[in-house]
């Protein structure tokens, strides 16, 4: 596809020794960042389709909103629009390694309490940790997340995936306000 071709070409450009070592001029560094961002965004539908393909037994068409898989490219600033704005969402973890891994996952959120269920429906142990003030105050950060939801993803199979269902647990006061 054209979208994937764009990423292929950009990855080709990124093999230049200045891109690898960071010795390019500043305006070139900014252009590299622009190209990479554009191509990753362009290929996000392909990633979503690919995950859906390995995840579903039926040949489901990826038109239903609840089957879209979004990347959060600003997780390094503890920012993710989907997890911050949604009361319910699914986190699908793809393991790019050739052996199974267990890994701690940190998701930026702004709610006070969450329930996380694994693929069997069982509730798993979670913890909310404040995002450090230095991160919250990062120049240019636009996020309402104040905490990170931490849980341990167990035994994600090699080149495989696992999904976790995350729902915000509303307090009695919140539910009264919504009503």
């Amino acid at each position: 596809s054209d979208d994937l071709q764009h990423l292929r070409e950009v990855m080709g450009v990124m093999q230049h020794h200045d891109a690898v070592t960071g010795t390019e001029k500043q305006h070139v560094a900014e252009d590299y960042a622009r190209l990479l961002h554009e191509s990753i965004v362009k290929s996000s539908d392909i990633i979503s389709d690919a995950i859906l393909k390995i995840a579903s037994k039926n040949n489901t068409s990826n038109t239903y909103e609840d089957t879209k898989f979004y990347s959060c490219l600003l997780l390094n600033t503890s920012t993710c629009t989907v997890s911050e704005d949604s009361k319910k969402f699914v986190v699908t973890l793809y393991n790019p390694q050739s052996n199974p891994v267990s890994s701690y996952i940190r998701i930026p959120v702004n709610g006070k309490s969450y329930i996380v269920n694994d693929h069997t429906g069982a509730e798993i142990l979670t913890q909310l940790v404040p995002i450090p003030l230095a991160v919250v105050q990062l120049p240019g950060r636009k996020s309402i997340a104040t905490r990170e939801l931490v849980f341990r993803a167990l035994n994600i199979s090699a080149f495989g995936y696992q999904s976790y269902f995350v729902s915000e647990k509303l307090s009695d006061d919140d539910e009264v306000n919504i009503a």
Partner: protein
Amino acid sequence: DSDKSISSDLYDISVDEAGQVVVQWKKENIKVVQSFHYYIGAVGDNSNAEKRASGAYIFRPNESAIHNFIYSGYHEIFKGPLVQEIHLTVNDHVSLVVRILDNEEQVEFEWLAGPIPIDDKKGKEIVIRYSSNLQSAGTFYTDSNGREMLKRKRNYRPTWNLNLQEPIAGNYYPVTAKISLEDRDKGYKLSVLNDRAQGGSSLTDGELELMIHRRLLVDDAFGVEEALNEQAFGTGLVARGIHYLVGGNLNNLDTIALAEKSMALKLSLRPWALFTPLNNTDNFINWK
């Protein structure tokens, strides 16, 4: 409020009065002190080697001395069933989260540095130091682009007699995944795994050092023709990354090597997180 430290079966971790993180091993007599420091980049007109400036290609501090940050910050402790964290603010541009996780052996140092201030017109290069009570006899190891570990001897080159004029820069090596040292007498090995390529060294026995961020004001005349002074939002860049600190008994070298390899892979090939907002599905079973 009463908590002064975080701890697991393996470590006790606290912050001292100077804003340094102290990691005390519980089962071995090993102590590591983590601290932030900075070098001031050399400035010159690049007309000859002695007037070379620190820049994109060259690390060259202006003197053989390291500078300490004045600790003007604070720290907070957060404990829970999965993770225990110390959030340490050293000053307005250097901070750290120290983390121990249930069922994991490493101590995580999630550092954050920048925007590096340049009001004094001096370029600065920030490093993290891990100083231990191990005796490494002038030797340390750095990885070869994630493959085998290469032996480095301080102030030494294997094929000629070395007389280093610049003992800091002359002992710096590339570290793409791991830097480590060993104390043969104690039979213990200490390693730091990094999540991106950095410069590193062991300038004193028992000590590991990695450079995490740089902001320099003069070109080093190796071709880029501009100073390494990256900016965003009208100020210098902020960098955030992770180091894993791990140790192990040299009697179990194979086991340690395997564990460290697996940790290094975990650090560089983390699971991709993909998010699906559920607007039309009430529960997970329906979604599945």
